[in-house]
C-alpha cells in the first residue's frame, strides 16, 4: 500500500506503562534467560525430557516436578526447558533471514533509486499480499512437514516488511547533508553505506529484527499447532500446548499452562524490547 512509506519515518516518544526502564530491564532479563535455555536447556533440565514414567502421569507441580508431569509421566519443567531450543531457534533464523535480506533490499532500493528501486518495491508489494502463514502452509504443501519449509517461507514472508522500513530509514539518512559531503569527497557509495549510513540506522535494524522474531514465533507456533511443522516428541512449546489440550480435560492443565506462559513471556519481552530499541513506536510496528 503506497500510503505506508510516508508514515514510516515519524519519531514519536512513547512511554511504556510509565515504569520506563524497569520494564525494559525485566524484558531483557527474560530474553537472556530464554537465551540460556536455548543454549543449555537440555543440560540444566533436572530430568530427561523424554523419560516416560507411567506411574506418575498427570501429576500437579511438586518439589520433584516443578511444573508437574504430562500424560506419559514426563517432567514438564524439563520438557519446557528443552523445548526452548526448537521453539526459539526457528524464530531466530526467521528473524536473521528476513532482517538480512530486508536490509539488503531496503538499502539497495534507497541507494540506487530509479528503476531498481521501483522494481524492488513492486516485488516487495507482491510479496506483501502473502500472509506469512499462507506462505508457510504452501511451503509445507510443497516440501513436506517439518521445520525447514515454514522457517524459509516465514523468512521470505517477513522480508518485505523489514525492507520497507529499512528503505525509508535509509532514504532519510541518504538525504542528510553528510552523505552528499562524503560523496563529494570521493568516498565510494559502498563505503558511505557501510561506514556511515548503516550504523546510523542500526537501531532500526535491531528493532526490526526483534519484531520479526515475535512475528516469526507467533506464525511458527501456529504452524506447529496445526500439525504442519515440528512433530512430537520434540518438546516444542507449540507442540506442548497441543499435547496438553487433552490433559486439561483430565484436570491437569499444567503442560498447556506453563508452555503458554513461556510463549507469552518471550513474545512480550521481545516486543517491548523492539519498541524501546526503535525508540519510536510507529516505525517499530508494521504500518
Amino acid at each position, binding site marked *: *500500500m*503506497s*500510503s*505506508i512509506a*510516508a*508514515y514510516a519515518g*515519524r519519531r*514519536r516518544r*512513547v512511554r*511504556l*506503562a*510509565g515504569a520506563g526502564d524497569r520494564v525494559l530491564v525485566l524484558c531483557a532479563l527474560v530474553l537472556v534467560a530464554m537465551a540460556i535455555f536455548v543454549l543449555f536447556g537440555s543440560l540444566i533440565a533436572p530430568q530427561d525430557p523424554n523419560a516416560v514414567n507411567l506411574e506418575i502421569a498427570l501429576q500437579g507441580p511438586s518439589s520433584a516436578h516443578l511444573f508437574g508431569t504430562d500424560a506419559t509421566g514426563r517432567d514438564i519443567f524439563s520438557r519446557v526447558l528443552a523445548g526452548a531450543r526448537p521453539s526459539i531457534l526457528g524464530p531466530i533464523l526467521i528473524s536473521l533471514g528476513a532482517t538480512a535480506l530486508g536490509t539488503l533490499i531496503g538499502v539497495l532500493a534507497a541507494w540506487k533509486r530509479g528503476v531498481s528501486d521501483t522494481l524492488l518495491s*513492486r516485488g516487495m*508489494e*507482491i510479496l*506483501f*499480499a*502473502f*500472509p506469512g*502463514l*499462507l506462505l508457510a*502452509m*504452501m511451503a*509445507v*504443501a*510443497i*516440501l513436506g512437514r517439518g521445520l525447514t519449509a515454514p522457517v524459509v517461507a516465514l523468512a521470505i514472508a517477513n522480508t518485505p516488511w523489514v525492507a520497507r522500513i529499512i528503505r525509508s530509514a535509509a532514504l532519510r539518512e541518504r538525504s542528510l547533508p553528510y552523505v552528499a559531503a562524503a560523496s563529494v569527497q570521493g568516498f565510494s557509495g559502498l563505503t558511505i553505506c557501510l561506514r556511515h549510513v548503516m550504523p546510523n540506522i542500526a537501531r532500526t535494524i535491531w528493532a526490526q529484527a526483534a519484531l520479526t522474531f*515475535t512475528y516469526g514465533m*507467533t506464525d511458527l*507456533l*501456529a504452524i506447529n*499447532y*496445526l*500439525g*504442519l511443522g515440528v512433530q512430537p516428541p520434540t518438546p516444542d512449546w*507449540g507442540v506442548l*500446548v497441543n499435547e496438553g*489440550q487433552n490433559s*486439561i480435560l483430565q484436570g491437569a*492443565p499444567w503442560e*498447556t499452562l506453563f508452555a*503458554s506462559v513461556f*510463549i*507469552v*513471556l*518471550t*513474545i*512480550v519481552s521481545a*516486543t*517491548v524490547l523492539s519498541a524501546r530499541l526503535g525508540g519510536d*513506536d*510507529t516505525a517499530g*510496528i*508494521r*504500518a
Partner: protein
Amino acid sequence: MRRFILRRLVHGLLAVLVASVVIFGSLFLAPGSPVTALTAGRPVSAHTRRLLEAQYHLNDPFVVQYADWLGRAVQGDFGTSYVESESVSAVMAPRVDTTLLLVCMCSLLILGAGMLSGAVAALKRGFLGTAVVFAEAVGLGIPTFVASLLLIAVFSVQLGWFPVYGSGSGFLDELWHLTLPAIALALTSVAYIGRLTQASVEGELGKEHVTTATVRGLPRRRVIRRHVLRNAAIPVTTAAGIVIAYLVVGAAVVETAFSLNGLGALLVSAISQDDFPVIQAVSLIAVAAFVVIGFFVDVICARLDPRITLE
C-alpha cells in the same frame, strides 16, 4: 483522484496475476505425482493412470496448464478436488460464509476496540491509559491458538456461555457460535491496532497545527476530532487494512481450534491430503482478498488526505 484510483487498480490486478503465477507454479514444483493424491496411494493400473492424467491435464506444459487454470478460475471454476471428487467451488461454497462472517465480526472488533482503546490511551493520561497500554502488551503476546484454548476452557466448558464448537445455523445462532472465535482471532490485532492508534494520536497531538488550533481557541473536542483524529487515522487505517486482509488465513487457527467449517480449516486439511486444486484456490482467494482490501484502504486514505494521490 481518478488517475490515482486507476493506477491502484492496475497495480492490484498485476499483483494478483503475479501472485497467481507464484501460487500455481510453486505447487507445480511439489514432488510426487498428483495421481498419488488422487488415488490416495492405492495401486492403479497403467490405463487408469493415463485416464487420470488426461482428465486433469497433468502432462501438458506448464504455461498451458497455468493458462487453463487461470482462465477457468476467473469464471469461478477451480477444477476438481483430488480428495472429494467434487468441484472445488462446491467444496468451498458452504465454507465461504462461515469464514466471511468470522472475518467481518473480527474486523469490527479490531476497528472498534482497537481504535477506541488506542485513542483512550493517548488522550487520557493516568491509570486508564497505563492499564490499556499494559493490556495491549499482554494481548500482543498471546498467540491465537493459546487464546482459543483459554476462551473455550473458561467460557464454553466452565461457564457454558458459548458453544464449544461448530458454526451454528441461522444468522443469530451463527453470531453466537462465532463470538469466541472472533475474539480469539482479534485479540492480537486489537492490541496491535490499539498501540498504533495510541502512537499515532500522540504524535498528532504534538504537531504544530494542533497547537495552533488550540491557541486560537477552538474547542478541544473539535481540535481532537477535526485535526488530530482525522490525520491519525491514516496510518491506522492502512495497518488495519493489512491486518484484516491477513485474517482470512489467520482464521485457519481458530477454525481448527473451534472445529469451524471454514476456508482456513479447509486449507489445512487440503495440505494434509495434498489436495492441490483446493490449496491453489484458497490461496488465490486469500491473496485476491488482500489486494481488494488494500485497494479500498488506499481509496479511503486518499479521501482522508488527498496529498497521497500525488505520489
